[in-house]
C-alpha cells in the first residue's frame, strides 16, 4: 500500500510542477540571468500548484524511507514502476484517454515484471511487512 501511495504522490508532484511550468512566462536561454531566475521563482511560489508539489515532496520524504525500511532497494524501486500501469488506467477512467496497442503491450510487460517480482521475491522482510500490513 505504501508503494502505491508513493507512486500516487510522485504523480501528484509531476503534475503539480508541470502546471507550475505552464504558468511561468516564456524563458530564453540567451537572456537567462540571476534576476530572471529569481523572478521565475517568485512567480512559481505564488502558484498554488507549487505548494501542492512541495507538500507532495514532503509526503514522499515520509513514505519512501518507510518503504526502504521494509524492503530491499532492488525490490522497492522496481515496484515503484507501478505508476506506469496506474497512470494510464487512471487516464482512461477519469480522462477518457485512448491507449494504443503498443502501449498496452508495454503495460502488460511491466505488470508481468512486477507480478514476477512480487511472487518470486517472498523475502523475509517482505513477508514481515505484509504481516504488518505495510505493503
Amino acid at each position, binding site marked *: 500500500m505504501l508503494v502505491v501511495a508513493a507512486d500516487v504522490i510522485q504523480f501528484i508532484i509531476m503534475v503539480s510542477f508541470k502546471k507550475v511550468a505552464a504558468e511561468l512566462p516564456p524563458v530564453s536561454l540567451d537572456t537567462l540571468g540571476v534576476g530572471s531566475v529569481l523572478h521565475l521563482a517568485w512567480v512559481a511560489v505564488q502558484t498554488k500548484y507549487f505548494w501542492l508539489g512541495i507538500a507532495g515532496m514532503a509526503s514522499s520524504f515520509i513514505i519512501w524511507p518507510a518503504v*526502504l525500511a*521494509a524492503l530491499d*532497494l532492488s525490490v522497492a524501486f*522496481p515496484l515503484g*514502476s507501478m505508476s*506506469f500501469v496506474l497512470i494510464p488506467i487512471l487516464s482512461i477512467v477519469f480522462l477518457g484517454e485512448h491507449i494504443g496497442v503498443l*502501449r498496452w*503491450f508495454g503495460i502488460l510487460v*511491466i*505488470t508481468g515484471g512486477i507480478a514476477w517480482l512480487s511472487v518470486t521475491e517472498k523475502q523475509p522482510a517482505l513477508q514481515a511487512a505484509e504481516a504488518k500490513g505495510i505493503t
Partner: protein
Amino acid sequence: MTLANYVTVLILVTLISLAETGAQLCFKTAVEKLNMPANTFREMLMLSWRLLFFFRVWVGMWAGLAILGMWITVLGMSDLNFAFSLSSIHYLFIALSARFVLKEKVGRNRWLATLMITVGIAIVSLSGGQG
C-alpha cells in the same frame, strides 16, 4: 535531432540515472544505519526526522535538484518519450548497485523481473505518440 544532440541527451540521461541511483543509495544506507521501525505514522515521522541529521541524505536531496535541472535541459533538447525510454535504464543501475554496493541478494528472478520492467517502460515511453 542531430547526432551531437543524441550524444548529449544520452550522456545527460546516463548522468540522471547515475544521480538517481546515488540518491537512492544515500537514502537506503541511511535508513539501514538507523534501523528504526516504521510501522505507524508516528514511527514514519520519527524516521524521516532522524534522516535529516544524515549528511548523505542532504547529498541525496541536492542530487534530486540536480536531476530536475538536467531533466529540464534534456526535455529542451529531445522529446519526452525518447528521453523517458532511455531513463528506464536506471532500474538496471539500481539493481547493479543494490547487488554490489548494498550486497543485496539479487537472484535470477529479480534480474529478469527488473529487465522486464525496464523493457516495458521503454515500450510505454516510445509508444507516447500513439496516445
